[in-house]
């Protein structure tokens, strides 16, 4: 191809730096959104691997009743760190910080985000927060053992290093706010000519909704965690029941952020699936407006349901009723998305490439995670299931089974664009099959044993739960095997210089497929003018009709 030949002569963003430095300095001081995205990708994946190892150890401890490999205190610290790292360092920044940074400007036809230096600063905050969380493990006193929710009064009383963990979460929250602020302003100000709001790709819509939650909800957790720190330093009494403070108030403030944060995690993954499905079904997405508005609706309703985490703490019945009702409401926009994805696949000419397979796993696991979410949103059922491993299974189906697989889908979908090379598709398919089987083997038994009464976060358990725990632990081994194959395949693909990826390997029609792989430093020589919608496959559909 002529364009291809011309493209290879041009320097891509790996070869051309935004500053005068070469080597490591050209990365650490870069203001290029693509390089910052890559920085996020590698730092985030490092944290992910650490947290996966913690999860693996937790599961190994639970393989049999009684002590297996660690002391109860270590177990408490491990599940705390597993939670903090996975949530604040992997899933929340996951799609927005890595793929949002890399793709958002390209997908809206811009040369960079609007505040490039602020963008780099956000990454430094992310790293600072991550390092503080990791360093707190090695300080005297040991890492926090409170669980990632830092519930008072225990988080005020424990002698472990709660303050470093709180500081880390605070700094990471700040990083998240600045990324959100950057994205909202970029989407408002930097769309290419012709890209009206309803010509934006759906991933951008979901990033937009996410960014609003990041901005509006994160300050609440900031102030709440700061208050816990102040409580530990000075004993002002705001959350300390001994001085008149109210621990339930802490839980409210915590979940006012942390429930919307769940949507910070899931919304970009939903946007991701909305990108992938039309490309691999070769069909214009079904119900574009509904998907776009459902993102906003989820962001809105998701901000009003926080107290469904607290049905057993003793609220007024009216409050419980209202929060339960609103919780059901969130399922409507979520279901709209699922129906639209499935309708898009219907009668499409589907090519089952790795990104689509991960996206299908997302839909399957999200359906399970979503439905069980409705179950525990029912007040009566919630009393039975609160604080059991049923809850653990539910949120892992949503967080890992959906968002995690969404991130894997994004990695496989945009990999050729980011690195300009191709991974081995066959191995990627195998890795997909193994991770999906492993994931379900790991978490499905938790639904059953939780229903039968296995409490969450327990170090020991009754012998009757042994079989379920055993199956679950074996599932964790299968899952990790799948992850190792997946990462090995991707890393090998990165270093594979032979399999050069073309500009548009999947046949996508959004703007990122109209720039070279990897993109040049400035993305576009000329800012493109957008005339069609983001998933305009009319040429495919027409071509199909003609052959008939």
């Amino acid at each position, binding site marked *: 191809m002529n364009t291809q030949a011309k493209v290879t002569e041009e320097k891509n963003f790996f070869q*051309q*730096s*935004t*500053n*005068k430095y*070469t080597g490591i300095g*050209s990365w650490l001081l870069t*203001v*290029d959104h693509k390089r910052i995205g890559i920085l996020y990708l590698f730092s985030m994946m490092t944290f992910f691997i650490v947290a996966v190892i913690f999860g693996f150890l937790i599961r190994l401890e639970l393989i049999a009743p009684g002590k297996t490999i660690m002391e109860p205190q270590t177990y408490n610290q491990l599940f705390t760190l597993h939670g903090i790292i996975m949530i604040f360092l992997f899933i929340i920044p996951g799609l927005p910080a890595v793929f949002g940074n890399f793709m958002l400007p390209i997908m809206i036809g811009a*040369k*960079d985000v*609007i*505040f*490039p230096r*602020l963008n780099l600063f956000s990454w430094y905050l992310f790293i600072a927060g991550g390092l503080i969380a990791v360093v707190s493990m090695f300080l005297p006193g040991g890492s926090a053992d409170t669980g990632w929710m830092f519930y008072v009064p225990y988080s005020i009383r424990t002698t472990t290093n709660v303050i470093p963990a709180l500081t880390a979460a605070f700094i990471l929250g700040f990083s998240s*706010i600045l990324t959100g*602020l*950057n994205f*909202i*302003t970029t989407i*408002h*100000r*930097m769309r290419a000519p012709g890209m009206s709001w309803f010509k934006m790709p759906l991933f951008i819509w979901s990033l937009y909704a996410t960014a609003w939650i990041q*901005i*509006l909800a*994160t*300050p*609440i957790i*900031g*102030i*709440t965690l700061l*208050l816990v720190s*102040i409580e530990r330093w*000075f*004993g*002002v*009494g*705001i959350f300390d029941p001994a*001085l*008149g*403070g*109210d621990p339930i*108030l802490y839980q409210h*403030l915590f979940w*006012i952020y942390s429930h919307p944060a769940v949507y910070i995690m899931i919304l970009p993954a939903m946007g991701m699936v909305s990108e992938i499905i039309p490309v691999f079904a070769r069909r214009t997405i079904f119900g574009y407006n509904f998907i776009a508005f459902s993102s906003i609706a989820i962001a809105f309703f998701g901000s009003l349901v926080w107290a469904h985490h607290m049905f057993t703490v003793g609220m007024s019945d009216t409050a419980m009723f209202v929060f339960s009702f609103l919780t059901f409401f969130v399922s409507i926009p979520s279901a709209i998305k699922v129906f639209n994805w499935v309708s898009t696949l219907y009668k499409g000419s589907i090519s089952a490439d790795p990104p689509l397979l991960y996206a299908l796993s997302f839909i399957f696991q999200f359906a399970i995670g979503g439905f069980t979410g409705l179950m525990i949103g029912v007040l009566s059922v919630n009393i039975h299931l609160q604080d059991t491993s049923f809850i653990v299974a539910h949120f892992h189906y949503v967080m890992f089974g959906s968002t995690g697989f969404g991130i894997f889908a994004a990695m496989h979908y945009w990999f050729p664009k980011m690195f300009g090379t191709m991974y081995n598709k066959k191995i990627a398919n195998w890795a997909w099959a193994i991770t999906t089987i492993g994931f379900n083997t790991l978490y499905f038994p938790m639904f059953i044993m939780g229903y039968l009464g296995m409490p969450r976060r327990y170090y020991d358990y009754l012998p009757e739960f042994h079989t379920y725990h055993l199956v679950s632990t074996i599932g964790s081994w299968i899952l990790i095997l799948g992850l190792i194959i997946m990462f090995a395949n991707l890393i090998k693909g990165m270093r594979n210089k032979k399999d050069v990826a073309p500009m548009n390997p999947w046949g996508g029609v959004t703007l990122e497929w109209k720039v070279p792989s990897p993109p040049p*430093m*400035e993305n576009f020589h000329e800012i493109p003018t957008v005339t069609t919608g983001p998933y305009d496959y009319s040429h495919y559909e027409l071509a199909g009709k003609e052959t008939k």
Partner: protein
Amino acid sequence: MSSVTHQIHRDDYGSRMGMWLFLFTELILFGGMFIVYAVYRFIHQQDFHLAAQELNTTIGLLNTIILLTSSMTMAMSITAIQKGNKKLAIALVIITILFAFGFMVNKYFEWSAKIHHGIYPGSPDLLSKPEGQILYFGLYYVMTGLHALHVIIGVTILVFNVVYLWTGHTNSNYFVKLENAGLYWHLVDLIWIFLFPLFYLIH
């Protein structure tokens, strides 16, 4: 390598928009504190009423006047640079900074008087009071302390803006940084306008 300089996109409207979004987050940060205040005031009305009488309304009023006036000088400095009067703009920002110092000095005397009387978090005097009063003073120190921290951040930003004005980086064609600093300073002012009645005036 550096032959192609990365194009920095200038968009003053966008910069102001980013600043407004940031101010939202600041408002919500304090919003969390105001919720806590509202809840505890509702539970401990009597204690809040009694504790509030210990605060010195005169110093509070003086600080309110100082901050309001400083907001005015801040706004005036932006108008001055828009009209191209560099010296006046610099002088007005410096006056704003001096007002901020005045505020902090008052705050220092106010807090040290409280601490001198044995009212500070964890002090035996305070712990002997009823729970509502412990919470009132806990909130008083946390909220005014957090506000004072914002005053210090605001002063730092203003000092940078004096330098920008001095070097001509901020001028009659490009003054969005000074405008954004002004927005931040008005936020600091605004939060105090809510803190003042909540702690000093409502008895």
